[in-house]
């Protein structure tokens, strides 16, 4: 890690020199202090990234080790691909991979869809103040932690004592049977999707509304002249012009598709084993495996598998999207 930092600072220093070399009138002493300045500015972030982002990447060698705490990362014996074998032959792997993919595709589709829909509906609202008010209100859920969301959900589905809950009271009103939600794995992918939409819908709509605002007015004026209704303009003008923004968010989302949104799922499901069959994803599985059996090797192997697939997915998605729309690609 110290070498990485060294490289960064030397290259900073060299360019600093070339640059001030082109500035007439600067003397050597000043050039030095300038180089030093840029290094100082970049250093905290570079150190943090090297240690906490790149360090763990290097630490993935643990995936190929029979890791034990006493010998550490450098002393533990090598295990080849045993850790990977253990995970894929343990039986749970298929279920967990499926849950991860299925839930994330649901979340991604639902939040993007809700974002577009909410942005288009917000765009119909006349009056700056009213619009801003509603935008603020639907953006609020984004700012609460998964733990708080979990408590909200309990009030709806169970009530603190496990009986009651708003939803079951409503089903009683309509004469439908009450459901003991927290012991019924079937509906959970959909419940979690509703939670995601609740939390992320406003956030997504802010991004899409910004994109709608960037659409030139002339396009809509042409629509009005052609006699389009507002519904037609939303469907034929706004939606197609939102595609590039949606594509960027989709690419970012696809890159995260193998990461299982640990926060939301673990905060809500926790260690409730009856719900694992539909809600256990890679991240929650890894977390439990680490905490209960302390198996570093296998869990790191799963993590590496997850990162590699995620990386491949995001690269493929970026390339596909670049072919689609050249001017809107990332980086």
């Amino acid at each position, binding site marked *: 890690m110290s070498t990485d930092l060294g490289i*960064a600072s030397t*290259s900073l220093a060299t*360019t600093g020199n070339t640059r001030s070399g082109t500035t007439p009138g600067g003397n050597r002493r*000043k050039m030095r202090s300038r180089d030093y*300045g840029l290094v100082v*500015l*970049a250093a*905290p*972030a*570079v150190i943090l*990234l090297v240690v*906490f*982002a790149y*360090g*763990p*990447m*290097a*630490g*993935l060698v*643990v995936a190929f080790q029979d890791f034990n705490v006493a010998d550490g*990362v450098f002393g533990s014996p090598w295990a080849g691909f045993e850790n990977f074998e253990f995970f894929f032959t343990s039986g749970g792997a298929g279920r967990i991979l499926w849950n991860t993919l299925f839930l994330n595709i649901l979340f991604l589709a639902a939040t993007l869809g809700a974002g577009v829909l*909410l942005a288009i509906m*917000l765009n*119909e609202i*006349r009056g700056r103040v009213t619009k801003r008010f509603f*935008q603020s209100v639907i*953006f*609020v859920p984004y700012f*609460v*932690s*998964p733990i708080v969301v979990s*408590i909200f959900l*309990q*009030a709806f589905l169970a009530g*603190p004592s496990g009986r009651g*809950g*708003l939803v079951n*009271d409503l089903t009683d009103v309509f004469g439908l049977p009450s459901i003991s939600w927290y012991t019924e794995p079937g509906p959970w992918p959909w419940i979690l999707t509703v939670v995601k939409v609740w939390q992320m819908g406003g*956030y997504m709509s*802010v*991004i899409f509304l910004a*994109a709608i*605002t960037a659409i030139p*007015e002339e396009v*809509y*004026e042409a629509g009005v002249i052609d006699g389009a*209704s*507002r519904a037609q*303009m*939303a469907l034929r003008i706004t939606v197609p012009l939102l595609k590039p923004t949606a594509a960027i968010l989709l690419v970012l989302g696809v*890159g995260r598709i193998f990461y299982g949104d640990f*926060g939301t799922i673990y905060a809500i499901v926790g*260690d409730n084993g009856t719900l694992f069959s539909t809600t256990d994803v890679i991240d929650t599985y*890894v977390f439990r495996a*680490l905490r209960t059996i302390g198996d*570093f090797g296998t869990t790191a192997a799963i*993590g590496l598998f997850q990162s590699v697939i*995620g*990386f491949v997915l995001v690269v493929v998605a970026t390339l596909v999207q670049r072919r689609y729309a050249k001017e809107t690609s990332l*980086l």
Partner: protein
Amino acid sequence: MTTVDTPAAARPRPVSATPPTGPRVRQRQRPEPFTVASYVGVIAFAVVCIVPFWMVVAGSFTAESTLSKTGYSFWPDPFSLDAYSTIFAGSRVWLSYGATIFITVVGTVIAVIATSGIAWVIARGLPLVSRPLAVFAYIPMLFTGGLVPMYILVTQVLQLRDSWFAVILPMAIAPFLVFVQVSFFRATPQEILDAARIDGAGELRIFFQVVLPLSKPVIAVIALFYAVAFWNEWFHALLFISEPAKYPLQLVLQNLITSVANAADLGTVSAAPVYQMRLAMTVITIGPILLAYPFAQRYFVKGLTLGATKG
């Protein structure tokens, strides 16, 4: 920023109402069904967003006897302050408030300093430096080491177990916010920088005395994003902090979910109103965010807009 719809709406209808002897001017303004449906949709979603907050606040003031039967309430009846008085009588809530405030304040300061610094060096557009540095900051968005190496790093290598810095440092740089700030910094007028350079200012002086004062809006944006993230952070706390006296608020709250018995630890009384306390603790945890939100909201919108449209 408001929109495309204003001019379109204000425009006299060119097609549908060709006869100038049409109905009164007022009626021309009658909204289309699509607009009505949009209002209904937005209002419905807004209500859904607010109701859970109201239920929890109302519930936290409702007596335990009612609460344990229904689990929620829309109106605190019978009204009771038992939960709050029990919670604030104990010392745990103050300790965890202290922990959360420490993590939020120190974390945000570190994060803003680190993020601004690297963002400026990237935005400077120096050959051989800025672009590699941008890639260096971008890669962690695509590829992460994951939980296990991070766990080994923090607990074995850095020995930060039970330290609040184990929560702060891993999330002190958010690449997304680095790029939000880069896109803002790129718009800094070149003339001002040149003027400062001619006056003999070094890079540090330019950054602190010229660039930062010009960048207050974007600093506010990223500071708020970091502050909310630190305030809500519990995953790293869950992993690395095992000493109950050092728990931040979110972790205390999580313990209340996993077992209501934990509520008894919060107060001093043995027969604690556990369900009510869980809701009261939720209110205590989200309170500061909700109070700050009306003032901070526009900065969040601005930050997202900057990030989404790339300046």
